[in-house]
């Protein structure tokens, strides 16, 4: 039974951490866009 | 005859060329000047077909695909493009083979043309910088191309040899070749160049017949 919960938790941990990296990358891009805007 | 339209070359987020439109005619010697990182080398590499344009087009002698014109292009890069462990003649014999030239006479003549001795058995790695540059020029001339792209041919070459090379280049120009030459020593070519091209940040910013006009800009 514990293995079941572990597996389900692991699945979502993997997916959520991937989504988190996506969010981070998106933030970084936003920052770059801001910089580009300002320099123009 | 080289026609370039809207040429942009990007290396990832870095743009080496930012929109170049230019024409270079046969029988003329163009001297390309500019600071380091202005895109001079990338321009030559694009014309030579070594760097594929991100945008824009290059047409050489009517070929829109640069690779189709490769027999008419002679390219001399800043590095020697020679195998250090082999002698000059061995090097040229190999490169002649790539162009389907099988007789050694051609290679010997080209080596003599740049004032070196084809019988030299020393490996190129032991040549002086000046000799290596001349051997490198010989390699570019091997297949008698109509277009010559020379990247820094005089770097580390002593003054007298450089003058000899200039004389040779002028002769080549007079035999109706298109020559694009990147250099930092523009004064060497003051009397023979047809046009000076100034590049800055990946663009051509001015073209003049007189070097002086560039300097006072």
């Amino acid at each position, binding site marked *: 039974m514990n293995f079941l919960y572990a597996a389900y938790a692991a699945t979502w941990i993997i997916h959520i951490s991937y989504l988190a990296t996506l969010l981070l990358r998106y933030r970084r891009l936003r920052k770059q866009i801001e910089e580009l805007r300002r320099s123009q | 005859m080289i026609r370039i339209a809207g040429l942009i070359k990007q290396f990832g987020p870095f743009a080496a060329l930012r929109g170049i439109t230019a024409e270079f005619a046969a029988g003329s010697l163009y001297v390309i000047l500019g600071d380091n990182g202005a895109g001079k080398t990338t321009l030559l590499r694009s014309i*030579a077909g070594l760097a594929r344009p991100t945008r824009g087009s290059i047409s050489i002698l009517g070929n829109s695909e640069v690779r189709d014109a490769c027999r008419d292009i002679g*390219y001399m890069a800043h590095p020697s*493009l020679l195998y250090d462990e082999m002698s000059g003649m061995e090097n040229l014999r190999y490169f002649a083979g790539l*162009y389907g030239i099988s007789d050694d006479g051609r290679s010997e003549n080209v080596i003599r043309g740049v004032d070196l001795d084809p019988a030299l058995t020393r490996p190129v790695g032991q040549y002086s910088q000046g000799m290596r540059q001349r051997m490198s020029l010989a*390699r570019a001339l091997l297949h008698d191309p109509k277009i010559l792209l020379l990247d820094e041919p005089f770097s580390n070459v002593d003054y007298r040899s450089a003058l000899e090379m200039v004389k040779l280049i002028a002769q080549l120009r007079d035999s109706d070749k298109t020559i694009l030459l990147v250099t930092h020593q523009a004064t060497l070519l003051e009397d023979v160049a047809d046009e000076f091209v100034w590049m800055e940040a990946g663009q051509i910013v001015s073209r003049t017949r007189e070097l002086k006009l560039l300097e006072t800009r």
Partner: protein
Amino acid sequence: MTLSTITRATLMKDLRLEWRSKDAINAMLFFALLVVVVFSFSFDPNAEESRQIAGGLVWVAFLFAAVVALNQTWARELRNQVLDAYRVSPAPANSLFLAKAIGNFVFVGVLEALMTPLFIVFYQLRAVGPVWQLVPVAVLGTWALVVNGTFFAAVSIRTRSREIMLPLLLFPISIPAIIAMVNATTAILTGELSIRVWIVLLATYDVVFTIACLLFFEMVLHAE
């Protein structure tokens, strides 16, 4: 100007360069020797046990050593950017590829020929099965390593950390070939199983990837 003359000229040039500098072969030999010695500490090399694991051991040693040689092939062309001289010439890309692949085949083959006696001595190897069968396994297996190795070495010279990139790209793709080589060798040494299926697998691998390399090499060579 045919494919074969340029291939031959390039191959002769590479062999001559290697003969003069001996960079690749020396590094490769010493590296393989180190692997042999280091592995011998990790288990007790008695005859019976060695026979079981020698197949894997031998090929792992060759694989790592081959990577050294494969990196050298293009490193040689990158010095003074000589590769550009080839790229501006009208010579077909595949001539270069074949010359390089054959050259590497020769280098790795020489290495194998020199290392095999060492393995026999250090691990008291004695094959129970038919020894001659090692020849086709070695030929097909070496080509399998070398053909993709040459290709991916050309890919990795376009990346930032060249030398490290090659094994990262090559090893995953080579897994089927490695499984086949290792198992065929073990089968011959222990004399227990037939190697026919492994030979078929290796041959298929060789054919598939030789064709793929020839199809894609031009693109990779001119990718700048």
